[in-house]
């Protein structure tokens, strides 16, 4: 055995635990899902290979295209709001104001509270009869009667987005705050010495230097939001009338609700393709940013 070959084997031996883990937890289920997507698997013990039939069905019958569009719209608004609110929060938390530490701590609860509890809290707030939001709007004279936010398609759609934003904002804020604090103070002092005001400094120093953090966070948030299941499921289960059914909810309903495992797998594969595209975009962006930093 040559020394090169022995070194290669040794390298594989060292990689083996990680490789076995990835093959078992990621690669095998993914491969199995792809195989399943070409079958008519259901509760029956046996199933047959059906070729592209599941894919043809989901794109021709039903409303899968509508679900895809809805998922993108839902994700777009949710991610955009998280980025905008997260940035505003980071700016405020970064400002030298009294009680800064307290405000930083107060940002965390949505992230710290177990997600299901937070979502149920919002479900109560959206409730038409007992909900705080409806009551508040009525007391302020903005509405004439109770509104059950989760009972109507358009309000339910925005209600699920608001909850997703509420849960997602703390992480974005903290990430942006960390990125903001890594900008050397000297840069701001130099700009101030040159007469640059607060907004000018934000526009010409903070924002350009935050671009890598914004790109990274947007893409990570995009991947997480695109796959967001628990918020919608607990609040609306994809209803009313499918108005909050995103791809992941749709897949779950098909596979676990209708027991059409083969078709559900096909929908899951489509989701995976989108997520893989997002991931490739993310890694390319990270590489480009690193190359930019190295210059």
């Amino acid at each position, binding site marked *: 055995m040559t020394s090169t070959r022995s070194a290669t084997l040794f390298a594989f031996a060292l990689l083996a635990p990680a490789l076995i883990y990835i093959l078992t937890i990621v690669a095998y289920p993914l491969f199995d899902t792809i195989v399943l997507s070409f079958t008519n698997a259901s509760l029956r013990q046996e199933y047959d290979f059906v070729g592209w039939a599941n894919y043809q069905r989901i794109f021709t019958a039903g409303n899968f295209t509508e679900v895809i569009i809805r998922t993108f719209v839902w994700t777009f608004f949710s991610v955009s709001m998280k980025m905008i609110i997260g940035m505003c929060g980071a700016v405020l938390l970064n400002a030298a104001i009294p009680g800064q530490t307290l405000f930083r701590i107060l940002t965390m609860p949505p992230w710290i509270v177990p997600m299901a509890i937070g979502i149920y809290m919002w479900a109560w707030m959206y409730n038409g009869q007992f909900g705080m939001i409806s009551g508040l709007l009525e007391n302020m004279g903005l509405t004439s009667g109770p509104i059950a936010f989760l009972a109507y398609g358009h309000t339910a759609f925005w209600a699920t987005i608001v909850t997703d934003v509420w849960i997602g904002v703390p992480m974005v804020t903290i990430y942006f705050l960390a990125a903001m604090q890594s900008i050397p103070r*000297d*840069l701001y002092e130099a700009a101030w*010495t040159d*007469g*640059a005001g607060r907004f000018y400094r934000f526009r010409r120093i903070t924002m350009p230097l935050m*671009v890598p953090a914004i790109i990274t966070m947007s893409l990570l948030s995009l991947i997480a939001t695109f796959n967001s299941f628990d918020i919608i499921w607990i609040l609306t289960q994809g209803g009313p009338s499918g108005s909050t059914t995103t791809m992941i909810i749709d897949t779950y309903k098909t596979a676990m609700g209708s027991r059409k495992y083969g078709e559900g797998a096909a929908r899951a594969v489509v989701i995976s393709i989108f997520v893989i595209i997002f991931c490739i975009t993310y890694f390319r962006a990270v590489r480009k940013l690193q190359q930019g930093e190295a210059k």
Partner: protein
Amino acid sequence: MSQLSLKRLEKSFNEARIIKGIDLDVSEGEFVVFVGPSGCGKSTLLRMIAGLEDVTAGEIEIGGKTVNDLPPVQRGIAMVFQSYALYPHMSVYENIAFPLRVEKLPQAEVDARVGAAAKVLQLESRLQHRPGQLSGGQRQRVAIGRAIVRQPKIFLFDEPLSNLDAALRSEMRIELMELHKRLGSTMIYVTHDQVEAMTMADKIVVLDAGTIAQVGSPLDLYHRPDNLFVAGFIGSPKMNFINGRVKSADGTTVTIDLGSLGTIALPRAITEVAGQDVTLGIRPEHMRLDDGGFVIETTPNIVEQLGIHTITYSTLSSGEPFIGLFEGNPDLVESKSVRMGFALEQAHLFDARGLAVY
């Protein structure tokens, strides 16, 4: 009239008094260096002049006008930071043009001023590069360029060369001195490096724990230090100090008992120090290997041969460290006794309070 006046200037951070009542006048066109050990308050003082730190008490006047409450941009100053504070996402051109963009000057004016600064600083070929693509010296020049384009009354430099290697530092030092000559502007320069202070300054301000220990020209400070602190701080290697007690002071001669080193008689027209504990100071470079003057016999623990100089490090019988610096390469070896002497007129004398007696 002085261009900058500091009057009883004080700065405290909570309970800590950092600047303790400083009075200073700087004339137009002067190159003033604030020097002192770490934590002496020199950078804080500069930042107060710049307007980056609030004044706790006292006044800062620039051009006869009190500027305590004015923002930096209205003080007529420009500052060069230790870290250069260049904007990494902007080109060299945009970095230099930044203050002009803030002022919203017309593009033609911006082009003209940036072009002129780039020419002075030899940055013309680098204007489209990013700071990350420049060497340390070039970055330093960009930072200076950003200060130049504002055409300030006073330039403030906060340890601008401390991030450069030794060779580049001495190169940039000369460039800064040439720049000062060319622009003729007032420059205030903070450093902890006494070589920079000695070579660049018209006037050195030595700071010690938030107070001015001495103000004077470099040679004044070297030859006539006011106190032990300045005597020890200015000069490298630092001045040797030998403790003694005055046996007699008759108004023409002070005779000092140096213990096992013997007795020395220095010409001083003073009588008040009689019976006092005093400190004798002698610079290492004033030691000679002949038997002239006052002779000390000592055994070097370490001998450093630098080619141009030879430095010996010894410990006197009284336990005090003693350094000798000799020209060339005399035959000195470690652990071998050597007789070295100094001329009496080269000796410094400090009274019990640490103040110089001339």
